[in-house]
């Protein structure tokens, strides 16, 4: 059902954890629906220098969280805002249709974290 890449990232997710003094935090989903995800950012010079996540959810949710954080790491905020759910799914070698929702979630959390960072800096988002 899942691609080998999804299973691999599920087994060994990258960037799991929290960043206590994060510059931006984004949370989407909620445990009632079975999926919830928080992304923490450290930003320097408009670049994502550190990123971590915590996810409550299915295998795909964990794998997409890991992949999304990998894709975002080192990118400028503007570039990171352009990461779409399709990008994430592609990098993972595809997701079962019923699971496309999960990859949505990870990209959303990333975007929320960036907006949070910008909001904190007084930017209009």
């Amino acid at each position, binding site marked *: 059902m*899942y691609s080998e890449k999804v*299973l691999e990232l*599920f*087994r060994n*997710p990258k960037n*799991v954890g929290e960043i206590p003094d994060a510059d931006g935090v984004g*949370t989407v989903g909620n*445990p*009632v*629906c*079975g*999926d*919830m*995800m*928080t992304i923490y950012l450290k930003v320097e010079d408009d670049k994502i220098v550190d990123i971590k996540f*915590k*996810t*409550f*959810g*299915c*295998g795909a*949710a*964990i794998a997409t969280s890991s992949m999304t954080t990998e894709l975002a790491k080192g990118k400028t905020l503007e570039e990171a805002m352009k990461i779409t759910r399709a990008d994430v799914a592609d990098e993972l070698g595809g997701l079962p249709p*019923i699971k496309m929702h999960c990859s949505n979630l990870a990209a959303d959390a990333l975007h929320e974290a960036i907006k949070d960072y910008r909001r904190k800096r007084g930017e209009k988002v």
Partner: protein
Amino acid sequence: MDYASGSPVDERVLEDMKPYFSEHFGNPSSFHSYGFKALEAIKNARMRVGGLIEALPEEIVFTSGATEANNLALIGAAARYKNRGSRIVISSIEHISILNVCKELSRQGFEIKYAPVDKDGILDLDALTELVDDKTMLVSVMTANGEIGTIQPIKKAAEIAHDKKALFHTDATVAAGKIPLDVNESDVDLMTLSSNDLYGPKGMGALYVRRGIRLKPIIIGGGQEGGMRSGTENVPGIVGMGKAAELAKVEMRSEADRLTKLRDRLINGVLDSVPESYLNGHPIQRLPNNANIRFSYIEGESLLLSLDELGVQLSSGSACAAKTLEPSHVLIALGLKHEEAHGSLVFTLGKYNTGEQIDYVIQQMPGVVKRLRAVSPLTPKELM
């Protein structure tokens, strides 16, 4: 440990079926010796399936599975007995085939009422008594639930139905072959049985229809199965279900003892070794082969996936719910919160499970749960 969603066919069953694939391929309606052979085989299977629940052979209607039997029971009775009343009362934890049929019947003008269960999943008999009124046509309460294993007081539920002249149906799909059943003792009018749950072949089921009750068929044609279910008989399937029923009858008691011990070893072992894990369903009034355990802060599918990689196959609820990603309606009916329901695992033990397998699960479980909790944003610090 996911026998609920599919079981291997017992080798002795397959052995009995084999000749009916090849040499004895006759049609029981055919007028020649091959046909008569098939007819005999079906008669014999009908006796064996009847025997498992103390029914007469002619009270057994073979179907393509439990879902079809549930459909036939409810749709067939509703069409036939609608003059008796427009209300149908079912428990709130019925299988989706009962629930969805009731939704359809409600579109047709029937009034569906759902009787609640308590926190262990046991039917609330007082509530049932209140819901079953003079215009109630049918009451349907499952014999036991496949997800939480809770065994229902069907004899009392049947009594409540009959007090108001309503028919009583019970879905015994997961109970048959696990606990003794007697349609006369329990005064059941209609009972659903599944072949695969007895280690018989898939694609086979049966509906017990008490003598004197007629159902409007849902599959119409050549008038097989006493006019209640048309279509050329699946002879090898029927023979297989018959053999499976016979074996179940003989071996049920000792196998139930064995499974009950394994089940309790599993439940106690996991609850002891994994913090914040809880049993769903009734601790004693439960099927010998079912354990349903809830793990706080993590989601069921990721648990399934981790365990599958360790060689342990499980389910997080009904196989159907897996498709919709909804939390199990059964766990919600127990009063669990959605996030609690999401974090539950169903263990259904069977013939080929051993004590070593149980111990392996008990040994792996803490690590798996700990790893997933480390990824979860909900896990409290002290559990990490």
